């Protein structure tokens, strides 16, 4: 894992993304200290996934800077070597377990490929590390050797997490990574993520619409609306005492025991 010398492990300044005339992300700035976890919440269209894609290099920002582990990644990587290095700094786990794995590759093969990409290790060492990672995410031997079609959604997400961790990133972006899972499996994976964080000190950036998951996993929260940050602060404070109407609305819309839905006063402009 990259050494950051006390600097934040991830820092975004004035991020902006335009698609033609449409401004999807407008002047987003945040700092993620080493070992802390950040949540980015908001309705769909608020720009959350676009920010994730920009951080991880799948989308170039129109303006603004992103610095991860002390290296600037605001412009697209110029070489494959550069991209590989960035891969060792920030990784991502996507939402859909059914399309985020190559259907023709076993879990072991998936992890092994990443290890070969980043390290010049002999096969025996890669095998040992693959077994370690599979064990870390709770996959047994049978599951490691299986193709994705034989694995459940929760098991596939574990493979995706193991693949991301194989690069030993400092930051792991979880883009609605537990949203498609059954409640009981979601709990297992959330516990797993907490255990992994304890063991590897990775920092999470959690994109989620589920405020209860956000509460469980993160320290700081950023609330987005129409591409802008409307509220930020410690997760507990933002959820217990929301200041901005958007945050209040999100909080009020979250189902919980005893909750009753009420029609909103604001008409939705669609």
């Amino acid at each position: 894992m990259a050494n950051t010398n006390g600097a934040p492990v991830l820092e975004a300044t004035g991020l902006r993304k335009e698609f033609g005339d449409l401004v999807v992300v407008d002047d987003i700035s945040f700092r993620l200290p080493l070992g802390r976890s950040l949540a980015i919440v908001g309705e769909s269209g608020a720009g959350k996934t676009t920010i994730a894609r920009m951080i991880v290099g799948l989308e170039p920002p129109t303006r603004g800077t992103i610095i991860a582990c002390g290296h600037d990644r605001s412009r697209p990587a110029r070489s494959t070597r550069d991209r590989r290095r960035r891969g060792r700094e920030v990784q991502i786990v996507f939402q859909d377990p059914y399309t985020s794995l190559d259907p023709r590759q076993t879990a072991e093969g998936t992890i092994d490929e990443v290890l070969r990409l980043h390290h010049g290790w002999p096969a025996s060492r890669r095998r040992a590390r693959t077994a370690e990672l599979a064990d870390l995410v709770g996959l047994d031997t049978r599951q490691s050797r299986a193709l994705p079609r034989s694995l459940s959604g929760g098991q596939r997400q574990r493979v995706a997490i193991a693949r991301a961790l194989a690069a030993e990133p400092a930051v792991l972006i979880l883009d609605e990574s537990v949203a498609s899972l059954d409640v009981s499996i979601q709990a297992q994976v959330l516990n797993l993520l907490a255990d992994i964080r304890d063991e590897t000190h990775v920092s999470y950036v959690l994109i989620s619409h589920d405020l209860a998951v956000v509460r469980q996993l993160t320290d700081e929260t950023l609330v987005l609306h129409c591409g802008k940050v409307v509220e930020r602060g410690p997760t507990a404070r933002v959820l217990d005492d929301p200041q901005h109407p958007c945050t209040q609305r999100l909080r009020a819309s979250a189902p919980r025991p005893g909750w009753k839905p009420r029609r909103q006063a604001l008409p939705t402009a669609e």
Partner: protein
Amino acid sequence: MSAAVPLSGPVSRRHRVWAMVRATGPAGIASAIIVAVAAFLALFGPLLAPYPPNLPNLSLSWVGPTGGHLLGYDFEGRDVLSRLLAGAQTAMLGPLAVVTVSMTAGTLFAVIAAWRRGASDVVISSGLDILFAFPGILLAVLAAAVFGAGLIAAAIALSIAYLPYVARVLRGAALRERSQPYVAALEVQGASARSICLRHLIPNIAPLIVAQATILFGYAIVDLAAISFLGLGVQPPTANWGVMISENQSGIVQGYPLPALAAGVCIVVVVIAVNVLGERLIEQAQAAHE
């Protein structure tokens, strides 16, 4: 969210191919058998011919089936069955070359266009659109005019004519695959475009490529036979099914239809078998993707 599927262990490649063919149903299996036989003949046909296929004996012209000559003699007194067996080689190896070249080039263009998107895609797609305007036979006539008649010129012309079809179909599949999250995950890992395309993208559209190749093969047989029929491909006296139809066509009106029809039936049977097999394989490839 769907319930987990019971585990199936890794299976050998041959096992998988056989399972794939078996799943195409009785029509698919019959077609696969015919295709296998045709392939065998393409390789060993000339060796199996009981009589010399190119030796004329005009005193035996148009003689019907007799003992030892199951299909009789053609217009120059040569054994029809022997000529069919010998002709299988040029009738099918030519299309094989055409399919190999056009599939390889088509896959290359499709993957490049799908991977790079943007300007590269526009340029490639426009180029393909231009190529679409040229029918295969027309290009073959052009090639014959420039390079002289012959199988090689005809095969090259046909490969160029088929290229846009292949590229168009594969580009769609490649685009779909390219936009899958697992490809994005590999990009984020820092894998090179070449390794992602060769190790992940192309293998995942391989069933479609194979199915497309078999269908293209059927078209190539007909087109090359037609080109040979027109006298622009394989030149007589070399045995070739298309040539056999051409040179024996006068027999049809004279009351000796067998030589020409036998060659025609061979073409039709192989083309149908190849098409049925190809379509079934495409159905399977698409079903597997759901």
